[in-house]
């Protein structure tokens, strides 16, 4: 049986790891290499590293920096942020990525997903979704690090991206991000109901109970940042608590 994956997410800006609330007000929390090594030692099952402002600034991710982080890790690594082309993907794979997360430029140019899948395989292409609930109650997909409206309904967009061949979904609730209020369970429920590929829930982690709730709701994996970055939790104890709750967790 496959294990539930616990995945720290590192948002890079310049040469630092940053974290905000609702993806805004980014504060420096550490050095990428140090934090990557720390979470690897703690027993992370995978890691996500995003060049968080690359899209906003209209540039490609910082390949050299990504490489130095990958060098610390012997677990699967997803990289993203500002991916505009197959060329960017090749460069990130060369920098040590196993999977590539795409959001902004996929929404602007959906055929990019199909091309990437054809060249690198479904298993390599992760759709990053930044979802924000609208006053009318549906979820809108945002771009550029949760800053820009796309007008796309998250559910419709996910369906389209599944048809284009994505292999996994990184589902961020912008509303919950950095709040420690628990994951957006209704969003997770809605997306996992239609997804044929694994879904990583992200945004709002508070404690092991909040992780448990996200998984019970249908997530295949949970991404977390704030509570790890501020040393409120560490991965080992979280995994032990989830295991005691009966979830399949990697022991080592």
């Amino acid at each position: 049986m496959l294990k539930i994956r616990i995945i720290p997410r590192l948002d890079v800006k310049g040469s630092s790891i940053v974290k905000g609330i609702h993806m805004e007000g980014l504060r420096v929390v550490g050095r990428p290499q140090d934090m990557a090594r720390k979470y690897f030692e703690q027993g992370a099952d995978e890691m996500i590293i995003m060049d968080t402002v690359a899209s906003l600034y209209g540039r490609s991710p910082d390949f050299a920096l990504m490489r130095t982080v990958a060098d610390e890790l012997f677990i699967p690594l997803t990289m993203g942020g500002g991916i505009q082309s197959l060329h960017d993907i090749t460069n990130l794979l060369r920098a040590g990525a196993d999977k590539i997360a795409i959001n902004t430029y996929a929404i602007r140019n959906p055929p990019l997903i199909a091309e990437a899948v054809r060249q690198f395989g479904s298993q390599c292409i992760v759709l990053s979704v930044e979802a924000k609930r609208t006053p009318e109650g549906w979820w809108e997909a945002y771009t550029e690090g949760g800053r820009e409206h796309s007008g796309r309904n998250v559910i419709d967009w996910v369906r389209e991206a599944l048809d284009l061949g994505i292999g996994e979904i990184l589902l961020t609730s912008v509303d919950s991000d950095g709040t420690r209020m628990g994951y957006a369970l209704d969003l997770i429920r809605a997306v996992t109901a239609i997804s044929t590929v694994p879904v990583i829930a992200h945004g709002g982690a508070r404690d092991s109970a909040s992780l448990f709730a996200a998984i019970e709701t249908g997530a295949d994996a949970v991404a977390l940042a704030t509570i790890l970055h501020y040393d409120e939790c560490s991965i080992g104890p979280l995994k032990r608590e989830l295991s005691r709750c009966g979830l399949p967790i990697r022991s080592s």
Partner: protein
Amino acid sequence: MTRICIVDYGVGNMYSIMKAMRLFSQDVVMSEDPAVLRTASALVLPGQGAFQAGMEGLEKRDLLPEVLRAAKGGKPILGICLGAQLLLEKGWEFGEWPGLGIIPGEVVHFPALQEKVKIPHMGWNAIDLPDKGQWDGTAFVGITPGTEMYFIHSYILRPQMRAHVLAETTYGGVRFSSAIRSGNILGCQFHPEKSGKEGLRIVEGFVRSIG
């Protein structure tokens, strides 16, 4: 001198395995040059992707004779994921394709899995000892059966002989060979270089097995 050569045949990410090997060996190179393969003490066939593309990648670089010669001469070879699949006689991905044929058997798609089980098989899953199997004297020495390794694949190894099954894994109700071995030839369907500290023990075990 015990040089390890990571065979670059144009498929997938080779840096991870090189990085992992370098933790345990001073002399690790990556090459697509048959002459470099010939002088190496051990070969690693990494790779991810389709069976046919893998064989064509080896052929195009004229690496097939050298890999076969190494196997015949008893040189340790570690195949990972696609690299492990290529060790068998044939593969059934997008048609029927001949493999290296170093270990008898074939590569087939996952047979009917339980409902709602996703393909590819991607994530952490346990490796177990087969009946009457043992890991002493292999690169798996010291690994506790049931330890989880990282998998990402849609096709599985089906060696002809039980004696060549080194480890088994269950997914969606199907039990399959997650590692195969014949003498100095080792194939892992999972990625030891991506499987945390336990995976690194297997990499170390392989490096230690080289004369």
